[in-house]
């Protein structure tokens, strides 16, 4: 195969990879919305010589810090969900980096980016 054709193959693969990453990023961002956001915190209070602990989910909503009380029985599933959310967040970060890297490689202008994203979202075959 000629060198010029080889370049087209490589460039095409990069474009395809860019499209794939954008699609994956979108799907992951949709998915992460289903998980609760925030950090699990414990507040300890003393009352009549006894110490009580209360769990709160602390998150930021519209610039405000919001504390939501979490019932004791809800703590383990909430911990799992927060852990899962962190996993998705990490994955989203890795895709964002990759998209930025590919944009640099492909030297994509905004209009061109739109063209790449718009074309062939569906893989016809392997």
């Amino acid at each position: 195969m000629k060198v010029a054709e080889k370049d087209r193959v490589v460039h095409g693969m990069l474009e395809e990879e860019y499209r794939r990453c954008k699609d994956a990023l979108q799907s992951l961002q949709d998915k992460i919305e289903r998980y609760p956001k925030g950090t699990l915190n414990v507040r300890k209070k003393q009352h009549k010589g006894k110490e009580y602990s209360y769990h709160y989910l602390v998150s930021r909503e519209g610039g405000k810090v919001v504390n939501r009380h979490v019932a004791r029985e809800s703590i383990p599933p909430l911990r799992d969900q927060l852990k899962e959310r962190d996993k998705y967040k990490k994955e989203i970060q890795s895709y964002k980096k990759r998209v930025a890297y590919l944009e640099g490689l492909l030297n994509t202008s905004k209009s061109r980016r739109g063209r790449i994203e718009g074309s062939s979202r569906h893989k016809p075959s392997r």
Partner: protein
Amino acid sequence: MELLRTLSSVGFFERSTLIGSWVMPIYQELYQARYVLKTLDVDFAVHMAHARKDLRADLEKIITSLGFTEYLSIGGVQKFSSGGYEVEFIAHRKGGLNDNAVPVREWNVIAQPLPFINILTEFSEEAKLDDFIIRFPIPEAFFIHKLIVAQKRKAESKQLKDLEQCSVLMNIVRDDRLHRVVQSILLSRDTKRHIRNSCDDIGFPLRRLGIE
């Protein structure tokens, strides 16, 4: 590697195969067919057992336990992602244009249906990779599959990539095995035309496939 080892341990490669560009390094190792380009998506052709087949292994659970995140693509196909790598399952589509995602009960995954995938699963072989067995299409099946799908590609670059892989494989494919694969396919006029056009593009004699 850990993913392949795990899939192998649950018996996935007894009938299902690794496909896509990740097969090329195996051909390089076994047949000295040198091709260096590969993408970050790892595809598996899943053999479809009877639709009511019981769960054999919960791949969704297994793959996510390996650190992959699971999500559904726009088309409803299940994908698993880790560090930019993306795992996807492909099932054979029997004619028509129905491209609805296919739930595979046996493995608890939702696969993408594509035509001619059965060529890859029916003509496959095993190889030992480190300490486990992996299944992949024989080069002749991969070659013919690419000849067909190359002409169906919308993106020219993907077509070029398919044909480039064919150009590499045409040096190692055996005529007897090519005939066996071709004879197993119901060749429509369109499919024959696709094969003929791809052969012309790479300069491969059509008679080696046993097609007039």
